[in-house]
């Protein structure tokens, strides 16, 4: 037995009191009638009241009117022994009327006989935390609002783009048809009364209308490459390249051509878009080989983990690598029309398709030697034959 044990209650209360008085957070003792018995200096500062003004008054009197009932029933439930320990956030009022958000921890203390004696109350000022929390919430709401606004604007833009593409397809083509057709009719009916220059002008009008029609078609293709939904399935690029090569040969059956495609290049992506990409690339390779005796195109590739590297090489005119970065810009051409240049949209479409597949494209060339386009695309998932459930290991 220790000596201290002779006056346990007194010594214990003394220690508690000293601890309470020196505590950095608001602490108080509340009697069984729910009245302040003692408050520490931190508590006085928190509410702007002197201890003398508070002692003997009901705890709930400090509560904010809107939280009055909540604070009262919270203390009551501890006093009645319904809640052993209370941990709750409520609003209180500072002497000045300012709102004080406080986190209250209330615990019942018992005397030596085990009877409820008094409440120990810890009150931590959380106004700052609440404020930052509210500021954060407000900021979050603002951000969410902005994101929603941005998404709505994007949606509107995409609708506008669709309406625009539709307008191009319908409204720009109709006048072109009239220009081309009436020029053709004029050529047919008034040809005899026109001189050489007049007929040449009509031919130029018609050629220009045709070019513009092709330009509109390409713009629509570019717009569709941007907005059509994409599937992701295994696509045999070797097969598509063979098919595209056959189409090119069909269009020019007398042209000597050698299109050599490595088998088994299977990408993951949208078949229609990947076909369009290959058509564009092989068509370019074909066109820029026009001054060669024979068109030679090689399609090679290899799988590298989950990527598929494909190269498409021609032996045509090639291009100056100084302008390589301009190759994929819409409307940018590195060749004159007489050299086989199109409208400068084809490679922009190719790049868009590759990007939408999460891939990359670049080109290398040496003028007079030909060009090589390098594609990096997602490879199709390999189905491991050994993992088939119906197969037993050998």
């Amino acid at each position, binding site marked *: 037995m220790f000596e201290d044990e002779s006056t346990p209650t007194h010594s214990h209360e003394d220690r508690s009191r000293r601890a309470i008085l020196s505590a950095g957070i608001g602490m108080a003792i509340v009697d069984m009638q729910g009245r302040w018995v003692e408050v520490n200096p931190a508590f006085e500062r928190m509410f702007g009241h002197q201890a003398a003004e508070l002692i003997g008054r009901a705890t709930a009197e400090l509560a904010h009117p809107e939280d009055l009932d909540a604070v009262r029933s919270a203390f009551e439930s501890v006093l009645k022994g319904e809640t052993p320990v209370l941990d709750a956030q409520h609003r209180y009022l500072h002497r000045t009327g300012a709102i004080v958000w406080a986190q209250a921890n209330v615990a019942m203390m018992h005397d030596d006989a085990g009877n409820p004696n008094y409440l120990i109350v810890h009150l931590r000022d959380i106004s700052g935390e609440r404020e930052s929390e509210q500021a954060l919430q407000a900021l979050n709401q603002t951000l969410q609002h902005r994101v929603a606004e941005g998404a709505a604007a994007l949606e509107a833009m995409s609708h506008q783009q669709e309406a625009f593409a539709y307008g191009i397809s319908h409204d720009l083509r109709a006048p072109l048809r009239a220009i081309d057709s009436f020029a*053709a009719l004029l050529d047919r009916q008034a040809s005899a009364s026109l001189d050489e220059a007049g007929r040449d002008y009509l031919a130029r009008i018609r050629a220009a209308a045709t070019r513009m029609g092709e330009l509109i078609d390409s713009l629509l293709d570019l717009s569709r490459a941007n907005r059509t939904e994409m599937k992701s399935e295994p696509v045999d690029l070797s097969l598509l390249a063979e098919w595209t090569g056959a189409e090119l040969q069909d269009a020019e059956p007398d042209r000597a051509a050698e299109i050599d495609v490595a088998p088994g290049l299977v990408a993951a992506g949208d078949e229609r878009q990947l076909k369009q990409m290959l058509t564009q690339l092989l068509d370019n390779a074909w066109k820029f080989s026009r001054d060669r005796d024979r068109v030679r195109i090689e399609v090679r590739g290899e799988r590298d983990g989950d990527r598929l590297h494909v190269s498409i090489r021609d032996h045509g005119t090639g291009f100056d690598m100084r302008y390589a970065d301009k190759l994929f810009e819409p409307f940018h051409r590195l060749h004159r029309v007489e050299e086989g240049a199109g409208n400068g949209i084809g490679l922009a479409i190719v790049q868009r398709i590759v990007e939408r597949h999460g891939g990359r494209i670049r080109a290398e060339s040496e003028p007079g030697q030909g060009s090589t386009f390098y594609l990096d695309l997602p490879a199709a998932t390999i189905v491991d034959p050994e993992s088939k459930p119906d197969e037993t290991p050998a």
Partner: protein
Amino acid sequence: MMHKEILLVEDNPDDVELTRIAFTQAKIANKLVVARDGAEALDYLFARGAHADRDPTHLPSIVLLDLNLPKVDGREVLQAIRGNELTRSVPVVVLTTSIEPFDVEASYALGVNSYIQKPVDFEHFVWAVQQVGLYWLVLNHPREGDD
């Protein structure tokens, strides 16, 4: 049967003239009735309004329908034709500039017989209109009693 009308629903006067020329060149002699918007087309087909004195059972052999039309657009015209007992089996060919997939899809869903994009190039345009005329006016055998 060979001389029943062709109803052309087209708001663009250039396209009306070109279609007329194409039919003439193809030696298709059927009378070309032109409706300049969807409302006029429906008035003609259902013999009402300015066409109230027409015999509503006397139907055109074919309707050539543009999609983008003032007042009542081509899809609504198509819907009205297919929704009426009297006109539901009249061949309707959409002849339009748009090949937007949703236009094509919507037209077939509404029961169009064929969908043709008007080519920009004159020779192609004439060729396309002639093919339509030859198929629907010469080759195709309409339902008995439709005459």
